[in-house]
C-alpha cells in the first residue's frame, strides 16, 4: 500500500522569496500561463497581441532566476508618459486591465509572467474625460480609479506586437 501525501506550497516559498499573493480556486483564471510567450524581459500576450515589459520601470530584469530586482520607481503622469521609447508606451486602461489576474490578489497578476510586481497603483495613458484625473489600475485587487496627475505611481510599458 502506498501512502500519498500532497502538500501544496506557494511558488514564492519554492523560490525563497516572501510573497503575500493569495489566489482562489473557485474563480476562473483570467491570465493563465498558456496565454503568454515569454522572451527574456518581454512577454507576448496571445489574447491581445500586445508585448509587455515583464518588469516595472525602475526594476531590472534578472535572467538568472527570471525575476525583477531593484525597486519599482514612481512617476507623475507627465513623467510616466515620457518613459515611452522605441514603440514602448504607457498602456491605455483597457490594455492595463487585460493583464489583471482576477483570481489572485496582492498582487492581482500572474507572478510567473510579471515577477515581483508591487501591489500598488499603475498609471494608464487614459485621462478622465470629465475631470482632471487619469485612470490607474491597482494591482492589489485589480480595481481602477482616477487620480490627480501629480500623484506618483508605478509604470509598466507595453508595445504593439511586431
Amino acid at each position: 500500500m502506498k501512502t500519498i501525501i500532497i502538500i501544496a506550497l506557494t511558488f514564492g516559498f519554492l523560490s525563497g522569496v516572501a510573497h503575500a499573493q493569495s489566489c482562489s480556486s473557485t474563480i476562473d483564471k483570467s491570465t493563465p500561463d498558456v496565454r503568454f510567450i515569454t522572451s527574456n524581459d518581454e512577454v507576448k500576450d496571445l489574447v491581445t497581441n500586445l508585448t509587455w515589459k515583464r518588469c516595472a520601470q525602475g526594476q531590472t530584469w534578472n535572467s538568472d532566476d527570471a525575476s525583477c530586482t531593484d525597486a519599482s520607481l514612481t512617476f507623475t503622469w507627465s513623467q510616466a508618459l515620457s518613459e515611452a521609447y522605441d514603440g514602448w508606451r504607457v498602456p491605455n486602461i483597457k490594455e492595463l486591465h487585460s493583464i489583471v489576474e482576477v483570481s489572485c490578489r496582492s498582487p492581482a497578476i500572474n507572478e510567473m509572467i510579471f515577477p515581483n510586481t508591487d501591489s500598488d497603483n499603475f498609471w494608464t495613458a487614459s485621462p478622465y474625460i470629465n475631470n482632471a484625473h487619469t485612470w490607474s489600475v491597482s494591482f492589489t485587487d485589480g480595481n481602477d480609479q482616477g487620480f490627480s496627475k501629480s500623484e506618483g505611481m508605478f509604470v509598466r510599458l507595453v508595445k504593439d506586437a511586431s
Partner: protein
Amino acid sequence: MKGSIFQLTAIALGIFLIIGSGGSGSSSSDDSTEEEVIEPSEPEVPEEPVDLTPGIPSNFRAVSAYEGALLSWKETANANSYELCYAMETITNFNDCADYSGGTSFSVGTATSAAVSALTAGTPYYFQVRATNSEGTTGTASELVIATPGLGLNDTGITVCRGNDSVDLDCTSGLFTNQDADHGLDFTATDDIDGHTGFTFTRLDETGAEIDSSALDWSCAKDQNTGLIWEGKHRNISTETASSDSLHEASDSFTWYNSNAQNNAGTAGEQNSVNDSCYGYDASNVTSYCNTEAFIERVNTAGYCGLNNWRLPNRHELNSIVNYDAVEPAADLSVFQYTTSDVFWSATPVYSASFSGEQAWATNFNYGGSSKVHKTESHSVRLVSDGQ
C-alpha cells in the same frame, strides 16, 4: 513511515507531491517477510482487470484570442495524452475531425491547456478534446465549446489629449505626448459609421442576420474586434423606438446568481424570490426570477439573435465595450441604445481581502469605472455570446 522511500516531484504550479512507498501501516515493514506469511494453500485471488478506459476531459473552456483561441480542461483518468479537434462547423464525430470545414486535429501530449493560433478572426470555431490511454485507445470526447477569434482589444474611445488639468490639449505638445488618444484604433480608424471612432460593430436583427448600419432598430451587435456578440436592450415606452420583446427591457435589473460552484467563488449569490424588477416576474415560478442565471436561461430559450449560448460577460469582456470618451453613460449609444448610467454585472467574482465570495465585479456605465458589488444587489445586465 520509517523505511519509506520518498519521491519528490515538483509540478508547474508549485505543488509538491510527496509519494511514500513501502510500509502498509506496520512500523517495521519488510516486503519479503510479509510475502512469506501468506499461506501457500490459500487460493490465488484473481487480479481485478485494470480499467484503462480514458476518462472524459471536464471543464473544457475556449477563450477568444488574437486570431486564435486558448483552450483548457481538467485532467482525466487514464490519459496518456490529449487530442484536440477544431472546425468551423459543429463537430458530431471526433474521428471525422478532418472532414469538417477547416477541421484540424492534433495531440498536445499531457498538457491540459493549449493555444491555437492563425485562425480566422470573426468566425466561430468549434472545439473538442479527448484523452488517449497508454495503449492508444481513445476516450469519449468532451463537450463541444465555441470561441470566435478576435483582432485584439478594443480601444478606449478616447479622442482627446489632456495636460495636468481638464482642458483639451494638442496631442503633440510638450510634456504630454504618447497618451491614449495618440495611439491605437481611435487614432487610425476614426470612422463613426460602425461605432465611435475605433469601435467596429455590425448590427444584427432578431434572427442574427446582419442589417445595415442605417437601420433604426436592431437586436444585437457583433464586435468585429473582439468577435463577441452583445445583447441589445430596448425600451417599451411608446415615445421611444418600441420593441415587442420586453425580455430585453433596458431598465430591468437582476441580482447576481451563479449556481456553478466551479466559478462562483463559493457563493452562488441571490436567487431573488422577492424583487419584481424584471419582465415576466412571477413569485411562484423560479424560472421567472430576476437573477442573472435565470435571465440567461430565458434569453437562451428565446434563441435571441439566433443564439443559445448567451452568458454573463466576464470583467474584461464587459470592460471592452466601455466608451471612455463619454460619460453618463460611458457607452456608444449609436450601437448600445438605451444604455443606463447604471452598474452592469460581470460574471467575475471579487477576490477580496476578507474573502467571502459575496461580491462580484461590475462596471458602472456612468463613467466606466469598476465596482465591487454585493451579489444581493439588483443591477443591469448585458449578455454576451461567443457566436454560433
